[in-house]
Structure formats: C-alpha cells, structure tokens
C-alpha cells in the first residue's frame, strides 16, 4: 500500500502544519523589526543581540544548563548502577516486583504530584537544614528523582538486548567482578547509557513543573523565565529567546538521531 487516499494526505499535511504553525510564527516574529504588534517592519537580528545583554536571561540560561548537566550526571550514575544491580543479580520475585514498582512510579504519575510531594518534603526538611530552602540544590534533587527512572529503564532494555552470555564468557575466563564491569559490561552498555543520559538531559531541559515548584528567587531557568514573561505580554525579545531554544532542540534532536543511527549501523556491521 504505497499510495494514500487524498484525504489521508490532506489530514496529515494539515496536522503537521498545525504542529509547526505556532513555532514558525514565533521564529518569524523574532526577526521582525516592529517592537509592538504583528505588522512586518523589516528584518532585524536586534532582538537576538539584546538577549546577550540581558543579565536575567544569561543567568537563567546558565542555571538551566548547570541544572541539566549536574542532575544528568548524578542520574546517569545512579540509574546505570540501579539497572545492573536489579537485572543481573538473583533477587527473589517479590523483591524484584517491589523494586520494579518503585522504579516505575516517576514514569507513571503526573509530574505535578511529584512536585507537590517534593514541596511538602522540602518544607519539613527545611526545619533540619537550610540546604532545603527553595533553590538550585532542590531543583537538582527533583530532576534527578524523575531522571533516574528513565535512565534505568533505557539501560535495562540495553541489558536485556545484550543478554548474559558475554558476561558468562568473561566469568568463565576468570574475570573478576571489577574487571568484568570495566572491560566487558560498560563498553557493551555504553550506547544504552549514552541514550539514557541524553534522554535525562532533554527531560531536564524540558521540565517546567518540577522546577516551578522547587525554584527559589535566584534560580530562574529559561522555561520559568519565559512563563513569567508571558504574563507581562509577548515581546520580540521573548520570541528571539524561544526561537533560540527551539534551534538548540532541533540540533540536539538531529545529533541524537545521527548518533543512534550510527550505533545501529555499527551494531549490524559487527554482527
């Protein structure tokens, strides 16, 4: 069935247009010279230049990046160890089921519930230590909490696809646990770990709700900044900021795609 009914073609194109119309609109108006209103007054990159003079925005960008990098590193280490520990050791059925459930909670519940739970928990922990004042440390904790599950899930699917045979072979050849992990398991798992880390990184950049609930006055991120700005009305500068973030997303998506395809190719070439 290589040919589609014209109606299918029409609906599909309309749907894609529906997805892209707003994004393209923002991009177009980000290079419009008009300060107010939607009239085309000529091409300008002025709004982009202004972004780099805006201290608030630069700080928000820095916070967003720091938050994503730190939480991704922590979540990747924790999630990978969790996946190996869960899948490669002889846990009983009940224990495994229980651990599995805990691991799936952040994937299944709406993120606003996790955010509410964290607000309440941090509120109580604040009585013990001032680290738990709203701010970047809290946001990192919140992000790691949902990222761990996603990293573990991705790594576990890789663990399942490589199977236990290679590890068994290494063991039969008297490899110690440390050597086996280092020389056999991690290289084989690497594509899964990288994919998990990239997923975690994008999830962090993408997150709004968890950040919104746990952020303090000095820890604005770009999504929070844009959200607050909408309340004050749309401006060309926010158009430019949004377009920039969209462009970064596009680059990240294309890079990931390329990476995945290359690793798939090398996999098929090897086998």
């Amino acid at each position, binding site marked *: 069935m290589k040919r589609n009914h014209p109606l299918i073609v029409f609906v599909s194109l309309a749907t894609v247009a529906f997805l892209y119309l707003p994004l393209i609109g923002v991009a177009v108006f980000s290079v419009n010279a008009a300060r107010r209103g939607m009239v085309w007054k000529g091409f300008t990159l002025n709004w982009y230049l202004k972004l780099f003079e805006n201290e608030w925005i630069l700080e928000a960008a820095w916070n967003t990046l720091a938050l994503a990098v730190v939480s991704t590193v922590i979540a990747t280490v924790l999630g990978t160890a969790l996946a190996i*520990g869960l899948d490669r050791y002889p846990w009983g059925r009940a224990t495994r089921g229980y651990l599995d459930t805990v691991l799936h909670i952040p994937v299944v519940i709406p993120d606003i519930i996790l955010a509410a*739970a964290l607000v309440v928990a941090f509120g109580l922990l604040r009585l013990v230590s001032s680290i738990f004042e709203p701010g970047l440390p809290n946001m990192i*904790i919140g992000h790691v909490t949902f990222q761990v599950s996603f990293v573990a899930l991705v790594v576990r699917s890789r663990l399942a696809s490589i199977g236990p045979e290679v590890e068994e072979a290494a063991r039969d050849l008297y490899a110690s646990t440390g050597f086996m992990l280092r020389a056999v398991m991690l290289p084989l798992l690497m594509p899964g770990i990288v994919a998990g880390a990239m997923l975690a990184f994008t999830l962090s950049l993408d997150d709004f709700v968890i950040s919104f609930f746990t952020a303090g006055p000095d820890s604005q991120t770009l*999504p929070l900044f844009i959200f607050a700005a909408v309340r004050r009305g749309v401006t060309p500068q926010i158009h430019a900021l949004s377009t920039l973030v969209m462009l970064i997303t596009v680059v990240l998506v294309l890079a990931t795609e390329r990476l995945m395809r290359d690793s798939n190719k090398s996999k098929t070439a090897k086998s």
Partner: protein
Amino acid sequence: MNWWCWKMKTTNSLLAWYGELSTRGNLLKRGFLLLMPGMLWLMLFLVLPGLVLVLVSFATRGTYGQVEWAFTLENYKRLAGFSLFGWTSDYLLILWRSVMVAFVTTLISVILSYPLCFFIAARPERSRYLWLTLIIIPFWTNMVIRTYAWFLILSPEMPFARLAAGLGAIPAGAPLYPNAFAVYIGMVSMFLPFVTLPLYASVERLDWELVEAAQDLYASRPRVFFQAILPQTLPGLSVGIILTFVPAMGMFVVPDLLGGAKYMLVGNLIQQQFGPSRDWPFGAAISMGLMALTMIGLHIYRRRGREVTVL
C-alpha cells in the same frame, strides 16, 4: 527463559553464577551495593515525600499557612464540595473537567495520528526519516515555549482572532484565549506527537497482506480498520494513550496560560494551593484525588486492554 530460574530455591546454598561459584547471600550483597545508592535516593525523595503528602492531606492549615498536625478529613470533604455554606460542585467540576479534557485530547490525538502514521509509512525510505524527525522535534521542544507560541498565534492581531471576531464569536480586538477552545488547541498540539511516535512504530510493522485480504473479502472500510488494522497497531496505540492521558490530566502550563481562571484544571488547582493560597493540606488532598483518578484510569485501561488482546 530467565537465567536465574533454575537457581537457588534455598537461600545461601552454593550456586554457579556466570561461571563463578558463590552463595546467593554473597551475590545479593553485591547486587545490593549497586542498587543501594539509586534506591536510597528514590526512597528519600520519592517514596518518603509521597507518604508525607498522604499525611499532610489529613492535616490542618494554620492561620499563617503552616501545617498543623491535627488529624482531620476536612480537606477531602472540601474537595467533595462540602463547606460551611452547604454543598458546591466547584472542585468536583474541576476534577471532572480534567478527566474530560484528558480524554478528548487523547481521542483527538489518536484520530489525527492514524492518517499521519499511514502517510509517513507510505513515504519513500529517505523522506520517511525526514517526516519522522518533523514529528520528533515538537515532541522535544519545551512545553512552555510551545504554549507561548500559541499565545502569539491566537493573539488579537493575528488572522485567526480577526476571523473569529468577524464571525462574531469574540469581541473585536480580543484574543482567542483564555477559553476552552484555546486549551484544547494547546493540549492536542502538545500531546499529538506522544501518540504519533509510538503508534508509528506499530504501523511501520503492519502486515498489509491482512488488510488486503480483508479488502478482497469485501469488508467495509470501517470493518477493515477495526478488524484488520486496529488489532495490529494496538501495542503502539496503548503506549501512546498512556503517554497522553496520564500527563494530560495533571497538565498545568497549558490551562494556566490558555485557559485562565474560567477553565481551570486540577493541575492549576493544586498549584494554587501550593502557591498563592498556601494551603498545603488541601493541595495534598487534591493531589491524592488526581492520583486516584490516574490509578483508576490505568486500571480501567489495563482491564480493557486485556480484553481486547484476548479478542
């Protein structure tokens, strides 16, 4: 089968593990070391806060917004609509509306995703990747930015608002938000890729010979779809439905920006309690309500899902 299946019915008996001779207790100790940091994290920042949230939902709000540990069912009664002034349906209406919005969003996304998947599957191989990437990009674009983009498109100066004003649907010079229409537009565009991408994975693997067989046997078009195509695409479709319905119910950004106070969803209600109202106990109780709705949704879905697979 699972390689550990033949094992160790008895604890701590000797067993062969990857060619190494060890005891079960020994292995579990090592596995525990790997598991522990991650599990400890989840216990500390997921399970424990969850339990605290349950506790707080039975507590009372103090005069200054603090939590007072006096056990009460007041928050749940309030959620069910009972107040000093009698019964109101306000909160229940918001809960019901959230379920409906999530349901309709999922439905529309599914209806739009099928043609889109067939369209992409019929492209030549090279351009298929391009079309898929076109769906993946919005999937990963920040939700706040995409909502903001609708803010711009629906603003009074744009043709859509003018058209609506010309038709008399809204006053001239008014934007097309905040209202239910804007919420649905925003929600569908937000969640459509969440259905399309998993569904496509199934559509790509579709056995077209079955579809052709159905057509050869003079099945009507709906019958071809429901009996030859739908069952085959069920795995991808179910992933898509879960990925859409659950987060759509707790959605906060879209209704907040595009729905306003008139079209509140449960996400906004929760945020209000933790933000401006500073009523954590009531916010916790609403969160429990949302949690219950999520669980009911997943449960119904699982039961239905099993019935369909048995068919």
